[in-house]
């Protein structure tokens, strides 16, 4: 969850490929680990989406007659300290984690992309101010920033989304600014300007499309990071409020029963791990597929 700098995407040469999605899809399909990541994600998403059909009983309703049952045929992953089926709670928890991840990443992209675009394209004083601000935010370790924001805003789904989203917005500013800076100097932008294109037209028709590929790759990796950060907050008891099932919160509850009932902490963590792993596999695969210089089997 604290990987902002380390997962920043190198996007060189990704532009040409981005214009022809079928090629990207074909390349991605030949990327074995990316396909594996996609398959895991599809499965997890399906289970989360179909949770109400697969597990009709309420995942928040205590069932005191069957607390802390180890895994069995009836409860494949066991039951928790309030007798709730862990598999059902993990399925419902996936809905919460995926929604938080998607919203947080959308939030940081919506804040970071326009700022980075303007900062890189116009340069000058605005750029200078924005970059100093980004420097300042990057002076805080990502998880610490999200944690502090939650401390200020309070717990709950919305605040977790805002905290996680804001904490990773600087990554998008940096990324998009870099692209805008290099595109600004390209001949085709000069040509567009010579033909009388307005700044607005150049930004939307020429600069923004060139940011698509790196932003897609970054967002895929960032989804894993966001889910991990949100789970970390939940684990500390500063995320989604119980009894709503959320993977990090469930793991935190499971810690109390670690010595007697190992399954309570083990399976929610496994779900987080698999999800983040799948996003990392897919993100790496997308990066390779969008880079035309990369040879794929």
């Amino acid at each position, binding site marked *: *969850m*604290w*990987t902002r*700098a*380390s997962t920043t995407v190198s996007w060189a040469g990704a532009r040409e490929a981005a214009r022809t999605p079928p090629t990207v899809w074909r390349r991605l399909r030949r990327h074995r680990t990316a396909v594996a990541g996609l398959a895991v994600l599809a499965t997890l998403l399906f289970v989360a989406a179909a949770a109400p059909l697969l597990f009709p009983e309420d995942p928040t309703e205590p069932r005191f007659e069957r607390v802390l049952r180890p895994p069995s045929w009836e409860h494949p992953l066991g039951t928790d300290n309030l007798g709730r089926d862990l598999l059902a709670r993990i399925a419902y928890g996936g809905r919460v984690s995926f929604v938080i991840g998607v919203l947080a990443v959308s939030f940081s992209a919506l804040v970071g992309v326009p700022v980075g675009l303007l900062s890189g394209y116009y340069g000058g004083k605005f750029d200078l101010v924005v970059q*100093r601000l980004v*420097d*300042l*935010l990057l*002076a*805080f*370790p*990502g*998880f*610490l920033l999200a*944690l*502090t*924001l*939650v*401390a*200020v*805003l*309070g717990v709950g789904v919305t605040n977790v989304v805002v905290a996680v989203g804001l904490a990773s917005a600087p990554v998008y500013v940096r990324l998009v600014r870099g692209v805008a800076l290099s595109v600004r100097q390209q001949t085709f932008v000069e040509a567009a300007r010579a033909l009388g294109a307005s700044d607005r037209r150049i930004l939307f028709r020429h600069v923004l499309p060139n940011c698509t590929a790196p932003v897609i790759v970054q967002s895929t990796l960032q989804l*894993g990071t966001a889910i*991990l950060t949100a*789970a*970390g907050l939940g*684990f*500390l*008891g*500063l995320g989604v409020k119980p009894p709503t099932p959320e993977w*990090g919160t469930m*793991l935190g509850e*499971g*810690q109390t029963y*670690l*010595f007697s009932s*190992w399954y309570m*902490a*083990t399976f929610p*963590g*496994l779900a*987080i*791990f698999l999800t*983040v*792993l799948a996003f*990392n*596999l897919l993100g790496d695969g997308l990066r390779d597929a969008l880079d035309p210089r990369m040879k794929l089997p």
Partner: protein
Amino acid sequence: MGAYILRRLALAVPTLVGVTVVVFALIRLVPGDPARLVLGLQASEEEVQRLRVQLGLDQPLPVQYARFLGRLVQGDLGRSVVTGEPVTREIAARLPATVQLAVASTLLATVAGMAAGVISATRQYSWVDYLVMTVALFGISLPVFWLGLMLMLLFSVHLRWLPAGGYGTPAHLVLPTITLAAFSVAIIARMTRSSLLEVLHQDYVRTAWAKGLGARAVVLRHALKNALIPVVTVIGLQFGGLLGGAILTETVFAWPGMGRLLVGAIVARDYPVVQGAVLVFAALFTLVNLAVDVLYAYVDPRIHYG
């Protein structure tokens, strides 16, 4: 060299001042009246007003910030609302444990990560390479708190080799260090591998082989030296992640450090302690990045620091 270090140090000052502004502003964003929060709902309006004046909350924000900064440079971060102790004393009591954990993890991550990266790069596309890279990919995807609990389950509950938590003896340090280092080991291994692979294909390395040097001399003495530069950057950047991870690791292993102090203060709404702890974390990260920049000058002779 001395002048270079001084100049970098001077450049870090604005960043540190900016950090204090961010932290100050963030804490002021807390909804509600801090004085009311401290005294509780039963306190009378006069008492609350008196505390407001006492804390300087009746002053405009820039004045409040100037006072805050003035006290900060004298090492005064206010008092804990919960214990009444000076925040600096609370932090001083917890900082050594966090530094100990962070240093041990950085050492482990650097040694293990670089060793794994070198092994992987020198055997590119072999099964060892695939194994190391698969483990590294797992490493960057593991939730640090889950890894901690799983290690605890295996080594403390089942095998009974190591204590499940606490602080004091070297045995207590083992599991938290491994837990916290795992992510950085993976990142450093990946970076070392890709950086070393790039260098190994360069002409001067072929020359070294052609001279008849042994593998050890070629890889470790000639190639690795040049491959180190991006690795050093990553180690510095990792430190930020490490501090974030320390907050979670300390919670898992009941490690009496800054992370648990911060989390406890957040839960108790003890904002002076939250403010102090966040400041110290950010300052630590800034200073480590500064140290990395200086280290650069040693590793990379192309950097002029005259």
